């Protein structure tokens, strides 16, 4: 079973794009929430990460603020 991955992002956020490019490169399915427009997702992101900066990445309930390639790879159990 692949791990459940959610990314909270804004359309202009470059680190979000880097993270999504990484998911695509590694064939990791993910669900994306645009917190610029989706206020419910914005609240969810804040309650999970206690902050408003994007991206926030949720890997099976583990919350990562920003995109750290090696940390996310480790959380997913895949190579960098």
């Amino acid at each position: 079973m692949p791990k459940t991955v959610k990314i909270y992002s804004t359309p202009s956020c470059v680190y979000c794009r880097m993270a999504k490019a990484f998911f695509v490169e590694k064939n990791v399915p993910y669900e994306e929430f645009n917190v610029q427009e989706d206020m419910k997702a914005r609240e969810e992101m804040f309650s999970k990460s206690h902050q408003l900066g994007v991206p926030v990445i949720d890997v099976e309930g583990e919350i990562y603020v920003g995109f750290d390639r090696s940390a996310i790879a480790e959380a997913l159990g895949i190579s960098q």
Partner: protein
Amino acid sequence: MYDLIIIGGGPAAVAAGVYAARKKIKTAVVAEAFGGQSLVSADVQNWIGTPSISGFDLAENLKKHLYAYREGVDILEGELVTGISRKDDGTFSLALRNGKEMEAKHVLLASGSRRKKLEVPGEQKFEGRGVVYCSICDAPLFGDKVVAVVGGGNAGLEAVIDLLPYASKIYLLVRSEPKGDAVTLEKIKNDPKVEILTNTIVESIEGQDLVTGVVVKDTRTGEPRKIALEGVFVEIGALPNSEFVKGLVELNGGGEVTVDHKTQRSSVPGIWAAGDVSDVIYKQNNISAGDAVKAVLNIYEMMVKGK
């Protein structure tokens, strides 16, 4: 053992990687990420040969250019060099974040720089709760809000541009006078949303859960003033990523690697530096790329002629 290890993923490192591959130097590039500091620019208009490109696309192009030479260069993407030691035979051992080690005869430091923080009360507490270091990422979350951008260089002016479609009012807080490009400055000066406060420093950032205001001081009058707002975008310059070579090569007072500007050689034989980590006066993508090319040609010459 590599002939050359290049550390970094910005224009300097990629330019060096391309040139080294074309010279068939046995090379590895260790890049935590590609693109360098321009990654977060909405629009780069001075990368020569390209009238307009986003920082993200510039980063992608750099990465693509290096990967086009993947046959000739080992690329360690997402990896970080944490320390370098010089061995008795004059070669180098590089420690990586993943615990592994690499060996090289020559090293090019192209690790760039990172964003400087304000170091005022409240900054750390409210990071991500109103204090922002990536304007293009987080500007859309400040729709109809009052915000401040701190810093009058190009990065500060660009942050104002990023915020214009969203924020209701933007204070630009500048320590002395704005220093960014005249073209950008003209654009923001003419926008009624923007108020520029010169000779102004930030004393503290206040709030509860989220930022509610800043206290600033006019440096001419010494007069403090509180501004109610919800976002503080920090764009006050950069610090060189040179900690991992502290004690090995000579650094100047600002932590930049001092180099001979004809050859890019550092104080230690076998180590070169180029781009924003070096003591080059002008921190520019085009200059970083050029200086790194200079370094590789000098390294090649040294390998061939032995001097």
